[in-house]
């Protein structure tokens, strides 16, 4: 029996846990969130991704209860939560600065939320032990925050926010303060914990690699609007706009005009007197409509001779970026545009086939490019 793929957003019977409905948030003259509608389903690991100022943190704070929408409604489990103060929501937040109470021990920090619910002390101490075990902090239970390292403080913040088993956990740039190695390990730890506890996680981040690694779905935001919501694969392989294509990973964008050349097949005029490029696109383009062809560098091959391919263009190697395992060739086309071709370094650098100033051909198939209208 094949494991069913986790995709409640495709299932019309599933009711979302969180609904943003035409939510607008203004601070004075500044519109932080502009008429936003979004559904987030239970048990998702949902990422809000975007540059600073795009509104992702505002959305999170509205979910937590520290801001209220100017217009529109936010529903949690079917109930409108506008006006519900943060201390009365079944939502907990892991703060970017961790916000650990410096005057309390690790275990008192974790127990804080439980104590506010006035549970009996047995329940509280059991739950705290559970959380300490989950985040591997048993040895540090009696220490104060300034007596433990940064990575451990992050785990205390996580344990504290999970202690009350909230329906929804908000994580505000949780891995920003960690160094690269620790960040990677913690990403997988977070995913494990999310699966184990079955909590819905909403993470806010500006790091697209992080979003792609941990999330079941990513919402790419810009200036208060959601540009695209999809799984990481779809976002990467099928971005819906130049903005999204450019935001995630590296991409080559070639502007041109589209001409129909068969079912789902378009020819793109991109430069005077050059062979048109070919792309397959399910989207409809009118005759002569301006469009952008997006191709990921790793999908661009590089050749010494004109290859037999759907798309092939001649150019000169302008620059080579050496990344150890990969090389990115910046190939300048006669029109002045630069195409990036990323190739794995299967041979040593000294035995490279191509070098600076070489005349090369770059090619890609007609299915690997994405034709975008905006």
């Amino acid at each position, binding site marked *: 029996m094949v494991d069913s793929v986790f995709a409640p957003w495709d299932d019309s019977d599933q009711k979302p846990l969180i609904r943003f409905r035409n939510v607008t948030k203004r601070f004075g003259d500044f519109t932080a969130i502009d008429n936003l509608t979004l559904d987030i389903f239970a048990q998702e690991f949902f990422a809000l991704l975007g540059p600073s100022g795009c509104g992702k943190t505002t959305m999170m704070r509205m979910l937590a209860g*520290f801001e209220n929408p100017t217009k529109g409604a936010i529903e949690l489990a079917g109930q409108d939560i506008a006006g519900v103060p943060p201390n009365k929501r079944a939502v907990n*937040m892991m703060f970017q600065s961790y*916000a650990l*109470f410096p005057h309390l021990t690790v275990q008192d920090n974790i127990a804080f939320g439980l104590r506010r619910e006035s549970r009996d002390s047995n329940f509280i101490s059991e739950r705290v032990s559970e959380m300490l075990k989950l985040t591997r902090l048993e040895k540090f239970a009696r220490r*104060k925050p300034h*007596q*433990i390292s940064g990575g451990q403080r992050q785990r205390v913040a996580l344990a504290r926010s999970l202690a009350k088993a909230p329906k929804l956990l908000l994580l505000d740039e949780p891995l920003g303060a960690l160094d690269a190695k620790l960040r990677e390990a913690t990403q997988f730890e977070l995913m494990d914990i999310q699966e184990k506890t079955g909590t819905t996680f909403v993470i806010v981040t500006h790091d697209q690699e992080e979003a792609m690694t941990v999330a079941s779905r990513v919402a790419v935001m810009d200036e208060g609007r959601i540009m695209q919501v999809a799984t990481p694969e779809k976002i990467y392989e099928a971005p819906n706009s130049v903005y999204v294509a450019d935001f995630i990973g590296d991409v080559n964008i070639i502007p041109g005009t589209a001409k129909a050349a068969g079912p789902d097949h378009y020819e793109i005029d991109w430069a005077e007197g050059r062979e048109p490029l070919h792309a397959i696109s399910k989207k409809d383009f009118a005759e002569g409509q301006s469009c952008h062809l997006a191709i990921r560098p790793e999908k661009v091959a590089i050749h010494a001779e004109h290859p037999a391919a759907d798309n092939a263009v001649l150019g000169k190697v302008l620059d080579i970026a050496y990344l150890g395992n990969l090389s990115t060739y910046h190939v300048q086309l006669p029109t002045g545009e630069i195409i990036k071709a990323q190739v794995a370094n299967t041979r040593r650098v000294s035995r490279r086939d191509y070098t600076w100033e070489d005349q090369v051909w770059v090619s890609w198939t007609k299915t690997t490019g994405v034709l975008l209208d905006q």
Partner: protein
Amino acid sequence: MTRLSLFNVVSLTFGFVFLYVPMLILVIYSFNKSKLVTVWAGFSTKWYSELLANDAFLDAAWVTVKVAVLSSSIATVLGTMAAYVLVRGGRFFGRTLFSGMIYAPLVMPEVITGLSLLLLFIGMGLDRGVLTIVLAHTTFSMCFVSVVVSSRLMTFDNSLEEAALDLGASPLDAFRLVTLPIIAPAVISGWLLAFTLSLDDLVIASFTSGPSATTLPMKIWSSVRLGVSPEINALSTILIAMVTIGVVAASLASKQAALRAKRDEQKAARMT
């Protein structure tokens, strides 16, 4: 490790000599057997015994301490509220007036505050005594407390309060369990400041006190207007000694705490 230039060393030395020599002279002459400043007649503690036998002084001291404790405690509560409102309160009706009223007493000459309060009390028909002095001292102390506490609140990480709310604490609980313990040192400094200001106040007490309530500064004032008095020297020495012990103790305690915190952080950093 920066080395100080000669100019700087001279400045510091001159500065501190200037600040401390007058107090040192008071202390030395409090042990002078002779009444006169000019003649050193030998070491004696008789002025201390005369002072401690002087009922008027002791009564005044008691009144002063009572007033100081009461006014500084009320002032600390009100001042902390005012600080919280100013830093976290956002916009509200009459905010400019409020902040003006908080900051003005810091620089207002005492004769004006004293005069205005006395006229108010008379207009209200209040008998002047300990109550009126306490009211007066609370009013101006509250502003100093507010300044101290609000400067601490401004550097206080707001996300700690938000975290408390997020975890289910009511706003009052969040203040009580998280904010207050963390800003406690500032609140205590505020209290100490209010206490000292009250203890030391002459002008406002003169205006607002009554026949039954003479404070220590008022007693000192009536003595020193006639010139140098060795009893006052003795009293001064006692007060200076108390303050010195207090300040040095507080300074050492905070140094210790800072060292300990540093050591803890270094230990933590060495762990993974």
